[in-house]
């Protein structure tokens, strides 16, 4: 990645992280968008899988430190999702809105699945309800916000021409 592209990606990443800690609590929705996952996916497709896993680990530790659901569960989910996103980027990240939306949806749902299973806070019917009802809804919301973010940040995220 060229320095200019790296700087642009970094700006988009910072904007999304800030949105996660400002807009998300401001909205206060039960199924709010996860801007951290969107930021991770945006960066993961531009770096190697190992780097994406490390970034996911750091972001997960940050999220776990603040939200305190289960320290480490977010980190595990983030590094797995980051690695997988970077690995699958050739498949998903085409210039197609539907594929991008599906990419965000899959990333968020996968994150929730790993997180809830690793967290071991809920189980049984409640776990199923979380995994099959709330997580997909949250993933849809995240996908919509991800698409909106892509539209807004398109000038920044467009690769520079040599």
């Amino acid at each position, binding site marked *: 990645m060229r320095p200019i592209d790296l700087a642009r990606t970094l700006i988009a990443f910072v904007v999304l*992280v*800030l949105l996660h*800690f*400002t*807009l*998300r*609590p*401001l*909205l*206060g929705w039960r199924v709010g968008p996860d801007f951290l996952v969107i930021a991770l996916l945006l960066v993961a*497709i*531009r770096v*190697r*899988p*190992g*780097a994406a*896993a*490390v970034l*996911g*680990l750091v972001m*997960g*530790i*940050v999220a*776990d*430190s*603040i939200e*305190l659901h*289960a*320290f*480490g*569960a977010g*980190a*595990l989910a983030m*590094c*797995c999702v980051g*690695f997988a996103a*970077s*690995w699958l*980027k*050739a498949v998903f*990240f*085409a*210039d197609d809105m539907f594929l*991008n939306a599906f990419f965000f949806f899959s990333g968020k749902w996968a994150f929730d699945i790993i997180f809830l299973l*690793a967290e071991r806070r809920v189980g049984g019917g409640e776990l199923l309800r979380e995994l099959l009802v709330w997580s997909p809804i949250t993933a849809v919301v995240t996908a919509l916000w991800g698409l909106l973010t892509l539209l807004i940040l398109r000038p920044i*995220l467009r*690769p520079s021409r040599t």
Partner: protein
Amino acid sequence: MSSVARTYGRRDTILLAGCVVLSLVALFLPERMREPLATTLRRTVLAPLVSLQSDAELSRRAWATREERVAARDSVTLRSMSVDALSAENARLRDLLGLGARLRWGFVPAEVLSGRGVGEQYTMPLSAGARAGVREFSPVVAPEGLVGVVKTADPTMSIAIMWSHPDFRVSAMAADGSAFGIVAAHLGSGPERYLLEMRGVPVRGTIPPGTEIVTSGLGGTFPRGIPVGVVLGELETSELWARTYLLRPAVLPSAVSAVMVLLPARADSGVAGVWQTGQGTLAATRAIVNAGDSLSRKSGADSASATATPDSLSRAAATAEPRR
């Protein structure tokens, strides 16, 4: 979007494995080690993010509770309004208790039963009746002065007419006793309907504005000395040998919620000293003036006797001189 396919090598796998291991370590970290680590992160590198998040939460709560705050503010305002009304009522009841303490005996406290609506501006049902000793023509008074007179007395309640009733009459006089007349409702229009007029005052009896008018005690219904109103000015009438004065009533109809009904025995024995009218002030002023006059007369007499003493001495000296 970048769609460049990249392969991943052993280094990526090792990094992934390392990250997973670290995550699992963090996940299974004992509570006593996990919490200090998270706290340290929150208080150092993550402090700005934590601050942003808490500010956003506060903003959302402030926005979400704005209607509750408006409702709470309205409730407080409403309560403060009723507090003023309660304070006024308390003050009035205290005045009524003060009046009761001054009357000491021969009265019945009563409440005005209905919130006077249209058509009830001139009469008022009272909660005390004949069983409590209330009789027809019993005077109805308030701490400020005369309210009206009982028209009918049922066993448990009574109906009184207020001074604003067209049939109401009371014999009254200036507080200093300089002029007498009959006070009745001023049947004017608009706000003047709630004023009184004092009729039949002899032409020689001029009453200046501001003079307090009290009941005269003539006629036997009302004892002497209950405040009726204050003179606002003289009214132009066609009568040649009598004057008519416009009065501001001592008791406002809107302020009447609890009253005292004077029993016949109390009305007969009088209410001297119960209301502090100008009569007492006038009497005190006169007493002070008289006392001052006495002192000046005494000092004059003393100085006269002091002057007389040297004169007598000089006269004695003059008569003794030729003897030498």
